Every structure is written in structure tokens, then in C-alpha cells.
């Protein structure tokens, strides 16, 4: 198998990634705390219908989830390319970074230089793009990962796909929004090399939560909610909220050390 070394001897040194902080506005400071409560409320409200019919329930919850995440990233987070980001713009030019990324970056810069007054409106478009990217790239990848971790492969296709989409919306939207399609940042994200912050903590929490969510399935409690993929999605939501909280406060700036 051919492997290429990128981390070993990069052509241009890249500044080490820095943790993301939410925007220094009052609304951001406020909403970053309200957001997890809204997410959990939404999930709790939808839970009975998800248990009753996972496909319909999860599909119906996906739209409000996307709306909440758009609101969160637009209000609270610095978009990709912004100075407070991980430095997506000056990373090495990875072949995959196409026009889309530049477009997001340029818009950002234009908005950024124009001042804070038109902030929210200008941030909605990158936020929507993040949703699209999460849906088209992250959701299939996460679904594949779910199958790899034991999700049924011959049945329950819609269930697994929706489960993957939920995890993607929770974990990937904020990350896409702040890091764009910077290959290096994503590689670092997979290799656990990014510093922990609100956004990355959310991702780690959601993924670990989904993994732990599999634990109750084999128990003989004969509950409706033990069916696929309710526990996984529940674990992802709870994990996301915990990870966000810990990543934004106690563990902020820490790195996962091996």
C-alpha cells in the first residue's frame, strides 16, 4: 500500500491550531448557553415520536436540528477564515480545497472588513453551506462508520442514514463552519490533534456518546426505546451537550495526549 507522508515533512510550516472561542458579543455569550438546552428540549419533545417510528421521527427532527445549529453557528461562532479560526486560510493548499472554500473565506473577509453591523446576515450563508456539506459529506461518512461499528447493513438503511445525519448535524456543522474544508484541520480532527474547544469538544462528545449509546441495546429490558437507532442518537445528543460544555470550559485549549 502506498502511503504519503504529510505530517512528517510539510513544505510550509503551519501555525499550530488554536482553540476556537465564541464571538465576543453579548448575544453569542448568551446563546451559547441556551443552545444546548434548546437542543435537549427539542430532542426530549421529539423522543416519543422517534421511539414510535424512528424513520419518521428522526427525519422530522432533522429540520429543526439544522435550524438550531444554523442559529448557533451564526450567532456564536467565528466563521472559517476569520482571524480567530484555526487559520484555515494559511494552511497548506490541499488538493481537495476547491472553490467552495475560497468562496466562504472571501465572503467572510468581505463581511469581516465591513464591520460587525451586518454580522448575522452575512454569516447565515456559510452556516447553510456548512449544513449542506455536513449532509452531503459528513453524514455518509458517519453512516459508513456506523456500519463499520456494527450497524445493520442489510436492513434499517433509512434508520442508519438518519442516525448518521443526526450525528453529522450535531458534530460536523459547527466544525465545518469554523474550519471550512481545510484538509489539514480535518486530518487533525480525525487524529485528535486539534485543541479541545466548544466545537471540537462537541464532536468528540457526540461520537463517544453515540458509541456508548450502543450499550443498552442487548439488555433484556424489553423497552421500545432499545430499538435501533434510538439509543445511539440519544447518546450522541447527550454526549454532544456534555462535550460542548466541557470543551468550552474546563478542558478548553487542552490537547488529547497520547
Amino acid at each position, binding site marked *: 500500500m*502506498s*502511503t*504519503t*507522508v504529510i505530517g*512528517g*515533512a510539510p513544505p510550509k510550516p503551519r501555525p499550530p491550531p488554536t482553540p476556537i472561542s465564541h464571538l465576543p458579543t453579548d448575544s453569542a455569550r448568551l446563546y451559547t448557553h441556551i443552545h444546548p438546552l434548546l437542543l435537549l428540549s427539542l430532542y426530549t419533545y421529539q423522543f416519543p415520536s422517534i421511539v414510535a417510528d424512528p424513520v419518521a421521527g428522526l427525519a422530522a427532527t432533522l429540520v429543526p436540528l439544522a435550524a438550531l445549529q444554523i442559529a448557533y453557528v451564526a450567532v456564536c461562532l467565528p466563521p472559517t477564515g476569520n482571524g480567530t479560526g484555526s487559520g484555515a486560510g494559511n494552511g497548506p493548499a490541499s488538493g481537495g480545497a476547491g472553490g467552495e472554500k475560497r468562496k466562504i473565506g472571501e465572503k467572510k473577509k468581505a463581511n469581516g472588513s465591513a464591520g460587525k453591523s451586518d454580522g448575522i446576515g452575512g454569516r447565515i450563508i456559510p452556516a447553510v453551506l456548512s449544513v449542506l456539506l455536513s449532509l452531503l459529506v459528513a453524514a455518509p461518512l458517519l453512516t459508513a462508520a456506523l456500519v463499520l461499528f456494527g450497524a445493520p447493513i*442489510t436492513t434499517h438503511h433509512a434508520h442508519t442514514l438518519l442516525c448518521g445525519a443526526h450525528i453529522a448535524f450535531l458534530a460536523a456543522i459547527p466544525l465545518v463552519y469554523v474550519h471550512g474544508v481545510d484538509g489539514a484541520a480535518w486530518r487533525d480532527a480525525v487524529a485528535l490533534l486539534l485543541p479541545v474547544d466548544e466545537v471540537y469538544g462537541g464532536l468528540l462528545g457526540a461520537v463517544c456518546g453515540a458509541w456508548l449509546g450502543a450499550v443498552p441495546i*442487548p439488555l433484556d429490558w424489553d423497552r421500545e426505546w432499545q430499538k435501533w437507532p434510538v439509543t445511539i442518537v440519544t447518546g450522541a445528543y447527550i454526549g454532544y451537550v456534555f462535550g460542548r460544555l466541557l470543551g468550552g470550559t474546563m478542558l478548553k485549549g487542552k490537547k488529547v495526549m497520547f
Partner: protein
Amino acid sequence: MAARTLLLTLANLLIPVAILVFATGFFPYKPFMPGLAEYDNLGWEDGMGWSNKSVADAPFDRLVFMVVDALRSDFVYSEGSGMTFVQSLIREGYALPFTAHATSPTITMPRVKAITTGSIPSFLDVILNFAESDTTSTLATQDTWLAQLKAKENGKLVMYGDDTWLKLFPDFFERADGTSSFFVSDFTEVDNNVTRHVPDELLNNDWNAMIMHYLGLDHIGHKAGPKSPNMLPKQKEMDDIVRDIYSAIENEDHLQNTLFVLCGDHGMNEGGNHGGSAPGETSPALVFMSPKLTKVTHAMEKKSPVVPKAGTEFEYYRMVEQSDVAPTLAGLMGVPVPKNNLGVFIEEFLGFWDDGRDRIQLLLRNARQVKSIVEATYPSLDFGDVVTQDHKKECDSPSTGQQLACKWQGVVDVMSTRTKIEISSRVGQLYKFMKAAQETMSSTASNYDVPRLVLGASLAVISVFLTLFTLPAFTPMSPQGLFYTLILVLYSILMFASSYVEEEHNFWYWATSAWLFYLFISASRKEWTANFILHPAIMVLVLHRIIRRWNQTGQKFAGADDIVHSPLFHGSYSIVLWTMIGSAYVDVTNRLSRHVARSIAAFEGLSGVALGAPDDEFDPNRLMAFIAVLPLGVTAFLFKLAFTALDAPELTGGINQDLLNWVASLGLVGIARMVFGGIALSAFWISVAEWKRAQGRRKNVDGNGDLAVALFDLLTLFLLTQTKAQNIPLYLLFRLQFFFLSTLNLDPTSLTTTTLLLTQTSFFALGNSNAISSIDLSTSYNGISGYNVTLVGILLFASNWAGPLYFTAAGTLLLGSHGGANSTRRHIDTSELDDRDWVREERAHLERLARQENIVAERKKDSGRAWSDHVSLMTLWTGVSVASVMVACAVLRQHLFIWTVFSPKFLFAMAWGIGFHFVGTIALGGLLWKVGRW
């Protein structure tokens, strides 16, 4: 270092001691009373007006006892049953039907013991069931109704069917023909072997008991479940045999006083398996038949077919205990009740005796015999024949022993009363005592030896603490060490959850997935693979995902779709399966030929010169070697084909019939012996050659592990022989996992963790679980014609632990950096690399290779340490798993599922702790490690 070795040895020795001490407390060996029972003094001669030795006249003098293995109650009594003749007998009053409650473990040998002795066999009999020739398990010296009937004047017994009876009752039978169940696919031969003797025996009048044990119905269950299309025809076949025997009893003079009993030894669950205590497994049918039965049935309601009692699935008619058969037969045949009996004479049959005193006499003898067992259990309590004043107040006592003493006092009370009282009240009091005694004595709680449980568990915990001191450094805590610890902690917790004991495979699959993904992340932190989907760790994970779906196992989702049962392998598609099996054999043969080629070179004195020849150069030795090992590979493959054609004919659907016929004409035992012999011979040959090579090498140069790899490949061939055909393709996947793992260059702790996870995963992936019913016996008789407990035991272990043995060997090789991809890694296809970055990439690649070689070299330097670290981590795991299972069993000993879930788990923990840890990890691993350094 010496102290460490000492500690580790001590910890290892403590494990089997702990297991055995715990086992003797958990499955106490019940002392039985030796000798045959005799009619003893009845007592109360004056009051009852009987003489001390008087015996009620028995209505029968001959017995036909027909056991149909796994004859569940509904197979006889329900609407859809094929046994219409039996049902007509029930309607006419010539048959008395019951559902006989079989206690767990519901496998044949303990059930036969219960039926014949009337005792409740301990769980220990499960182990003895697999080591049937063990002398403690035979009933030759125990009191049974067989022994009683044989001891009668002109007592002669004949036996046809399952050879379990012949093992339990050696030299008991005048004439016998045992059938063994080698092949579960055999639905007809096993039964025809029994039936062909029946007409002749019915004409003979020299026997007083004929026992038949039919296995075909059980085979159908194991193969295709209770709803198999073969089930109804089999029931009809059994019904016809019943009809033949019954009409002989009606028509033949010498059979007119014959009692005919038809029963199942246990039932089956919806999957057709048994061993546990699901209602289906514990509810076999029990029918007594004779024209004389009208005397007791005339007043009864006679209906058939019927539906089971409301709220139950399989409870037809009255539920009796299986052990009740023994005293009932004793009473009906006029012999003393067997000494160790805990059964109670079935009430319905009292109608055979018109004189009430005969009834009381019968029951009193039964009660006295049960009382003697109760007395032995509670030696401090008063079970005398004199009424003591205060017995009334003992009846409220919370102690079960005192309650029994009180109930016995109740019996003494009514028996001693001079005044004329109703017979029924005496009968009632006797039954009250016997039922209570039966319940108390068969309940498990009184059987534990709690101090031993505590001692055993404590010893295991001590072993864990001793091992802790031998571990590689704790700090700094590495993530792999953390993961290892996490597995151990989670596992100990899960052992307390009955559903996770049943679904243990899910835990291992789940943990293994996470671990393999961690390996990917860990590797990605060092260097990013551009094509990350093809990263070796991801490839291992993909393979793991396929492997875990190969066999559905566990209880909750039993019967769910899996690869083995997919249409891919069945019928005409079985050619796909056989292509994969063929590839597995070709792969092993090819690998072996490489080793043999090297050995030829070694004997030619070319050592060191021709050895380095790369694979693509023509090597005449290689060709010769391939020709030399080809017969072994072909024989092994043919054996697999021949065995499968008999054991699982549905898997050979697409194979040419002529070929199958030819293969079948070869003797299975003979080919198996040829395969084993070939493996042994090859192992010897290659060992000698490698030893010669090692002698010729300079002293300071370490060996290259060629012999270890060769032995690993021979082990693979042996394990293939011991694996069912449908699981053989798994070895191709295992091999790929081994290859990809070897490219990862893992550190020793990671390798041990990987080994642990994959040994467990492969155990469950091969279809095993923590249920007794999942133990596969089919390949345990390969190459064995007679019964040999040691050989069968070894083969049984090898076939059920084949996956773990494979991976423990593979893990040892990886630890010594043998046999993986390291040797062929230099051949890299540069055309795949991008032009522009070519130089940089190549340089990086070379650097990486150099780095890896350094790692390998360094590992070889402190290799002794790597091995002892591996052993101490595996010992820690074994200690923790065994200790947690013991603590769970001890704490949950009153749990509802103790005999169905936790006890089988303990048996498996024994096999892991003693069998696998010592034979696999230490002996096999140690051997491979040692020869790896030649």
C-alpha cells in the same frame, strides 16, 4: 526479575486452584448413599395391622421404557401432533399422560440420571456429560430402578438406542445395541438401529425391562428446529412404534402385565436446542400405557388432543417432576424405591390398590426413603417415629429443615392415631411431607458451600493483586494501557448483568471496533495516510465487521440473519462456500510448502545462501516442497468434504454427486488420522531442519522465527480440520487481519490488547456463546473410533476454542515480529506515487522503513521483557475475568437465572481460565515464542 517471575508463577498457579475450590463449593459433589435399597421396617404394625415386611402386590412385572430424545410435551399432546395413536389411547383410558418437569441442565445424561435414580443431578453432571466415561458419573454403583429390576429374580435388562445408557450402566444389559450421535444430520439410521431389534425382543420373554432411546427427533431439532418439515413424519414414525409395541402387549400372553412408558428426556426451544431452562426445554412428555390402566383412569376425564394450561406454553395435563418416575415405577413394578430418590409416587396410580392400607404402605416406604435423605441433610433435627409435643410451633419456623421436621411429625401423628381415621388424611399428610421435602431438597440454595465460594473468589482476587505487581510500569499511563484497564473494568461489571452474559459477544465486538479505530487514530497522529479508507487499521476493522456477522450468536437475537445461514452457502450456491474453503486450504498448503522448501535447503547444506531467495525467483526446492505438502493439503480438504457431506449435507448441494460418493467411500476415521499424522510429521521434519539451521548460525545472531511461523501454519491446518465447513472462510479473513495488523508495527501493550480482543471476538464469531447448547461436539471425534475421554476432550476444546487458539498464536508471532508483512515490505510499487513528490516521498518512505526496522530491532533487544509483559497482562485478564465471574455467581446465587445464565458462564470461565490460559496463552504461546528465537 526473579521476584517478578516468582510472583507471576504464583499468580498463575492460584488461578486453577481458585477455580477448583470455587467449583467444589458451587457444584457440590453430592454424596450418594451406596448399595441397593431393600424393603425396610414399616412401623406402626399394631395400628395398621400389617406385618413389617409386607409388600403391596405390584400390578406389573414387565417394563418397556421408550425414551424419545427431546420429545417435548406438545409433540404428543397438541392438536398438530403426529402421534395420533397415543392420543387415541389417552381418549380410551389406556394411557395416562403427564408433562414431566425436567430441571436444568436439560441435556441427556443428567436427565437419564434423574429418571433412573429419582435424584436431582447436580450441575457438575454437565461437565461429566462431556466426559462420559468418568467413573464418578456412572450409575453402576448407585441405586436405580434398573438395578432394582435387575436384582429381581430372573431380572434381565435389554437396551437399544443412545449409548449414554451403556456408559451410565456398564455391564447391566443382557443384550444391547448402542447408537452414538456422531452426525446430527442422521435422522433415520440412528432410529432404524433401534427399531430393527424391537420385533424380536417383543417375542423374547427372558427380559423384565426393555429400554429404548430414540435420537432422531432430537437430531431434527438440532438441525432445523421444532417446525422442521421432518418433525411430523418423525412423530408419526414414533407413533407407529408405539402402536406395534402396544398391540404386542395386548396380544402376547407373556406381555400382558407389561407397563409401557413413553417419555422425553428433555424438550427443545424454538431453535431446536436444549440445555437451559426455557419452558420448551423443561417440558417433555410422559405417558404411561397399558390395557390395565383403565382401572385407574375410568373415573378420570379423558381428552386428547388438548391445549396447554392457561398462561403456559407447554404444560399439558398435570405437571409432575421427572424424578417422580423412579418411585412410581418402583411402586408399579414392585421393587424398593431407589435410595437416593427425591421423587414422589404419582398419585393417580394409587387407584391400582383397593385396600387403603396398601396405598399407605406404598407411600410410607417412599416417605421413609425420602426422610432418610432429609435426615442426612439436617442431622441435628428430630425425625423420629415418636410424637413430640411442640411440633406444632416448629411449623411456623423460618428454617426449612424445621418445617420438614414438623411435617414429618404430622405424618407420625396421623400414623400413630389409634382411632379410625380416613385413609385420605393419612395419604394427604404423607404427600404433604414428601412434596415439601422434594421442593426443599431440590432447591439449589441449600447446596452451596458458601465458605468455599468465598475462599475460591478470594484466591482469584489474590491472584489479581499478585499479578498487579508484575505489570509493566503503570506511569505514565498510556492510552493502550488505559483501554486495557477499561476493558477489564467493564467486563467485571457486565458479568453481573444476566443479559450481558448471554450477549457477551456484543461487548467484545463493540470494544474491538473502538480499539481498531483507536489504532487508526493513533497511526494517523504519527503520519497521515492519503488514502485513509485503505489504512491497515481500517481494513482490520472492515474485516472485523464481516467476521462478526458470520455467525449470529447469543440469546436475544437468536436466529437473526447471518452470513452462514444466507442462501449464499446453501443448495447449489454451496460452490461459493467450497471455493472459499478451497482457497483457505490452498493458502495454508502454499505457506507450508515455503517452510518445507527451506527445510530441504537446510538439509542440502545451503543454509544462509538460498534462504534469502525472493519469492519471484524460480526455486526448485519450492516446487519439490509444494509437491511434498500437496498430499497433506488435499487429504485435509477431502476430509472436510467427506465430513461435511455426512454432517451437513445441505452445504454440499452444488458439489458433484459422484465425487461425494467417492469421498464417502473413504473411511472418515482413517482420513482424519492421515491428516493429523501428516501434520505431526511435518512439524517434526521442519523442526529438525530449523534446528539444524539454528545450529549452523553464529551464536550472537538471533533467529528469524521461521519455525514459529511454520508451526503457526501447521496449527492453522489442524484448526481447519477441527472447524465446521461453513466457518472455514473465516480463517481467510483472520489471516488478512493478521497481515494488516503486522503492517501496523504496534507496541507490545497494544499487541497484547489486540490479542485479547481478537481471541474473544473470534470465539464468538465462530458461533459460540455462553450457553451450554452452543458447544459443538460434531468435530470432537475426528480420527477416533472408540471413546477416549482425553482425546475427545482435546479435540472438543480445539474445535470450540479454535479462533482463540489461532489468535493467541498469531499474537505471539506479532509480538516477536514474525511472519507478517515486514519481510515483504521493501517491494513497493513506485509507479503509484505522484511524479512531482516522488523524491520526497521516497525519502520519507525510506526513513520510515528505517524507523520501523529500528523499532523491530529494539523490540528484539528487550524481547524477553516483551514476552513476560504479555504473559503478565494475559494473566491479569484471566484473573480478573475469573474473579468477576466467581463473585457474580456467589453474590447472585439466589438469582432466578443462576442455573441458566451464570452457572454456564462459570463453566465457560473455567475453560477459559484453565484450558485456554494455560494451553493457549502459556503453553502454545510460550512454545512459539521460544522457537521464534531459534
